[in-house]
């Protein structure tokens, strides 16, 4: 549960990171294929949940993801990296996430649907993944496991919610 929220925002960050260059376009060019992404809506959802997330985050010293984790992705590996991250979020983060806040659930549900649509559109793309890209994705899994370990002692939904937004700051950098 805790890992779900954190990884959700992580994926959001990674997605926006990958879309940094073509940010002003609704079409995401990934190697030889193009994917339509409603980037405006994605950012809108992000900023909608950001304020609530950082308000209650009192775990000042815990930061699961760092900018270095997703920086310097080669242009040829963007397709591969985004595809693996989408799979990670859809299969692990959103599946295990629940929230008592209806507004937050609605926003995260919209984010999940957006991810699924993007992932579906990327099936037609033939992405070649290299080893460095795979290692970066493995680092994400380790961070997610660390979140699960840190907040394993807390049995409160609030902490779950807070842990979900631990990666928020990373997104902010690339917005």
């Amino acid at each position, binding site marked *: 549960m805790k890992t779900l929220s954190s990884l959700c925002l992580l994926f959001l960050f990674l997605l926006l990171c990958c879309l940094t260059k073509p*940010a*002003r376009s609704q079409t995401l060019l990934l190697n030889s294929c193009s994917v339509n992404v409603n980037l*405006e809506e994605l*950012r*809108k959802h992000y*900023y909608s949940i*950001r304020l609530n997330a*950082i*308000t209650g*985050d*009192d775990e*000042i*010293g*815990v*930061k699961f993801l*760092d*900018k270095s984790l997703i920086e310097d992705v080669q242009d040829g590996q963007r397709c591969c990296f985004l595809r693996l991250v989408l799979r990670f979020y859809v299969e692990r983060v959103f599946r295990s996430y629940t929230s008592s806040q209806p507004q937050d659930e609605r926003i995260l549900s919209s984010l999940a649907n957006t991810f699924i649509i993007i992932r579906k559109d990327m099936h037609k793309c033939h992405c070649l993944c290299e080893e460095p890209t795979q290692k970066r994705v493995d680092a994400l899994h380790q961070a997610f496991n660390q979140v699960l370990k840190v907040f394993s002692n807390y049995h409160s939904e609030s902490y779950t919610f807070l842990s979900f937004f631990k990666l928020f*700051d990373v997104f*902010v*950098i690339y*917005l």
Partner: protein
Amino acid sequence: MWKTVLLLSLGALWCTVSASLPSPTSVIISSVNLRNVLEWTPGNGTPGDAIFTVQYAVYGDSDADSKGRRVRWRVVQGCVEVAQSWCDLSNETWDLEHGYYARVRAKTRRTSSTWVFTRRFDPKSDTTFGPPLVTIEIENNSAIITIKGPMRYQPKNHMAVVSMATLYPQMLYNLSVKNTYHGETSHFRLSSGLYKHLLSDYNTEYCFSVKAKFLVMPIQCQSSEWQCITTPQDPLVSQLQWVIMGIVVPFLCVCVIVVIGHILYQYLMGMGQKTPYTLDQGIFNQPSLAFPLEKINLNAINDIAPADPMPDQHFEDPPPQYARYLPPQLPYDCGHPSIDYSFVFSPSTSCRQEERMRGRVNDEGGNNLNHQKHHSSGVYAPQATSSCLGRSFHADLPEHSASAELSAPEQAGTLHIPLNQKGDKITVSGMEEKNANELEPLLSVYAAHNTKCMAAAHSEQSDFRLADDLRAMGLEETEKDGGGHAEGEEQEREIIFIDWDPKLGKLVLPELAKWIDSGNEPENGGESNEGGEEEGNVMEGALLLGDVFVRQASEEEEQAPREPERDPEGGGEGPDILAKWNLVFPSDD
């Protein structure tokens, strides 16, 4: 046991002292152009000597120890134990890639409050944008708007000035243009800091305001102050103004000068000035003065009353008649010095009065007098003064008596003949009494020139009038010429002659004398002099003496001796009537 109680007491005291100082409230980090300042409000009950201490931490920066991770709080230089309620963290939060936390607490000499934490502060997301720098230049019909910034706050002077646009590539500008003339405000989204706005309206004030704008990020942005410019006037309007100023105005000035000059010229040269009426009379009367009545020797009264004049008709209903003066055969002496009287008439008014008279005559169907139409007396006026000299001529009373009528009141010193007993007016033949009463005092012994006009216009009639029996001849002539004149000369006229004896200096009005004899006999008690019958005709014609004004130019004393002279010759009645009417006829004697 005692030790336990003492420790508990100390612990309770410590807790009491520590909790006594309230914590600061409203602890936030406000940021404008990345100038990040921690602000707080001292809690209620905080003593005045309380001091505050500020610390900050970077998100995710912790130290691992035996108990786990501990956040590494850092001291802010310049914000340790300060009395102020703010602390500038711009230098500590310089790195935009990190998130920051801050905390503050109040402290006194003995105690301190608890720490109050802020929420996580992400400088890049939580800052607000100040107004950008806007420069506006007018080039031709466009306004070139140059936008800079806003600039990032520089906590250290040695750092280069950096625009916020470089830190936020996705930042846009929102330009607002307000047209004060139309009251419209239009907005433009600019991706660069240079914009050229077309100024479509002349003489209009345009106001510009710019602020940063983000499509997605919920960042607050402040607008710049309205900078207004006023476009110049329309060149066409300016040209028209110049045309007006350069051509029309001088033209008008020239016109005004010309008009003024013309008026001055007219004034100085005496052109176009209208001589006062009295002066005109005076000038016009000069010939009359030169040729007084005595010299004209014209004493004929042409009574053109119907063939059967009504002697018994009263003055109130006089028959239409014409009275004429026919000059005696004596030559006219222009150089006679004793000029005392002259007939005066106004040419200008005579024409008008002639029309009036003519209209009246035509309206009076009972009179059946179709007077001979004469030319304008004004036309003949100058001619008359000269042409009548030494000539015998007749006067057609109806026309000219009216012409002399209006001049009566205008003549200074004129002598009115009060033939009309009722209104001291003399009625004119061819006029009813009521018409005569409406007129000015009349005297049918008209102006001399009027007779001249007649003489000039009807020269063929002047021959027989030279006969001795002028009246008979006049009757015959009118009968004879009646068929020849289509204008109405065929109307019967009865000519009344006024006998003027130059030797005696006495004017005899036959009709007048007759009237006087018949009507005023009880008063006068005397006989009329010779020609009494004719005088009666004159009175019947009544007052045919339309208006003759005798102007007395000589001294009064000359009249006195003359009157006695007339008495024996003219009988008792004549002088009395003349005296009664104040009618004085000078004589050559």
